[in-house]
């Protein structure tokens, strides 16, 4: 019985320690992001990796999400004879909820996992130790450009997701199912207000920060993983955990931001 409590206590302490470490890591990285010198070429390079290279997957996910919304929305609204509201239903769902969340989940899968694996491998092969020994702050040199790039890229990708999704809904609703094009856009213009856009922007900014924070922190503290973070298996296990943790955290924060801003 004592052993059970011992194990629970041990596990709780480990989790608390890890949470504290990640919190301090966020503070350290935030400080590095805010203080000069700013490494613009490195930020652009990271924006290319996190942002530009995600456009393809964001485009397709956005298009098909909008098309499904158009299809489902049309048949649901048709039951009440309100097909004309399809534009506002698609736009509001995308701008307030699905755009930020699905774009963030796509970025986690594509860039978040890569960031965690990259930093984890650098930790395993002593490259991060080497930076510290050269008196180069790894948070400034490695993390700060990734943080800035993610915080800027995720909202931009969300905009793309929203716009492509709205046109996807238009394609299905107007071109395939015969909703009036004017009604589709007029419904959207009259129902979407600045507060909806604001919510989408706030969510995507927060999600960008959460993704880069969790992905890079898990990689950075790979060597402190209890189950052993070393070797290829350790990197793969930690990357999987980072993806799961980032996805769940994004969904939790999605609810919290919605509850606060509604």
């Amino acid at each position, binding site marked *: 019985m004592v052993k059970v409590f011992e194990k629970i206590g041990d596990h709780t302490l480990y989790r608390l320690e890890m949470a504290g470490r990640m919190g301090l890591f966020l503070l350290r990285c935030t400080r590095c992001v805010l203080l000069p010198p700013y490494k613009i070429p490195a930020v652009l390079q990271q924006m290319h990796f996190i942002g530009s290279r995600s456009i393809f997957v964001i485009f397709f996910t956005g298009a098909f999400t909008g098309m499904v919304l158009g299809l489902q929305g049309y048949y649901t609204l048709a039951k009440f004879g309100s097909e004309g509201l399809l534009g506002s239903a698609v736009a509001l769902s995308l701008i307030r909820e699905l755009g930020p969340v699905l774009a963030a989940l796509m970025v986690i899968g594509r860039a978040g996992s890569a960031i965690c694996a990259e930093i984890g491998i650098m930790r395993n092969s002593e490259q991060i130790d080497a930076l510290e*020994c050269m*008196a180069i*702050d790894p948070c400034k040199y490695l993390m700060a450009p990734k943080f800035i790039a993610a915080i800027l890229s995720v909202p931009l990708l969300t905009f793309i997701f929203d716009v492509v999704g709205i046109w996807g809904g238009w394609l299905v609703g107007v071109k395939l199912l015969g909703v009036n094009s004017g009604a589709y856009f007029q419904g959207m213009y009259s129902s979407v207000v600045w507060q909806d856009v604001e919510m989408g922007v706030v969510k995507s900014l927060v999600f960008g920060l959460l993704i880069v924070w969790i992905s890079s922190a898990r990689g950075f503290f790979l060597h402190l993983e209890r189950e052993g973070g070393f070797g290829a298996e350790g990197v793969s296990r930690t990357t999987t955990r980072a993806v799961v943790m980032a996805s769940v955290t994004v969904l939790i924060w999605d609810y919290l931001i919605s509850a606060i801003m509604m």
Partner: protein
Amino acid sequence: MTNGEKQAVQEPEAAIELEGVVKVFGRQEVLKGIDLKIMAGKTTVIVGASGQGKSVILKHMLGLIRPDRGRVMVFGKDLAKIDKRELNALRMNFGVLFQNAALFDSMTVYDNVALPLRERTDKSEKEIADIVEGRLGLMDLQGSEDKHPAQLSGGMRKRVGLARALVLDPKVVFFDEPTTGLDAHKSNEIYRLFFETQKQLGYTAVIVSHDVPKIFKLSDYVALIADGKIQGCMSPEKFQLSDNPLIREYVETTMGPIYSSEKEEPGLYETV
């Protein structure tokens, strides 16, 4: 950091001093009270069986790990009592050759060696190019500037690592198992480069190695870590003849019982 700041660091007789350093990982006490002095301008080799904590000692000296008890003094400064800025200023005097060289895979050889100069000095690209070319020349690496670490052999990677470690003219250079994974020829090449660069640059060297007895030829002091403690730090000659049972056991295990006397093991030399 400016040259003025760098010169302000006074080197006492002992460049690095560990006093009663204790380190526990989980439930395992790896270091149980390490007392060790690294003398300035000399070469100290730390030997010991695998898993005894040799690299952990090195990481304490570099300020990468903090001791649970005891203190680590570098150039007279207690690493636990200085802030990040002071620690970075001290690290400007360090060069490290990691076990696997720890080169940045995404960068070329040139960029790897140039990185400390670009990040930590105000030198122009022209000055950086001159220094990097000089260091690569010293390591016989001309023509490899545009290669990536993955395109290099193990020996070449170590040489690039050594070039990077020496690029800021460090006062202390740490070598973590510099010849592990290299054949005898490549090992000798690394030792030759170490010998030549130390003669030229006059740095203090701390080497963690398994390469006994070859490494003794290059060392001024040899320290054995066993049972979580330094069993002795002395000249290689004294080390090989030490009465300490753990040192004696280590010497015999790694070099064979060639130092036992005829009296202790009668008939041994007749059969060899």
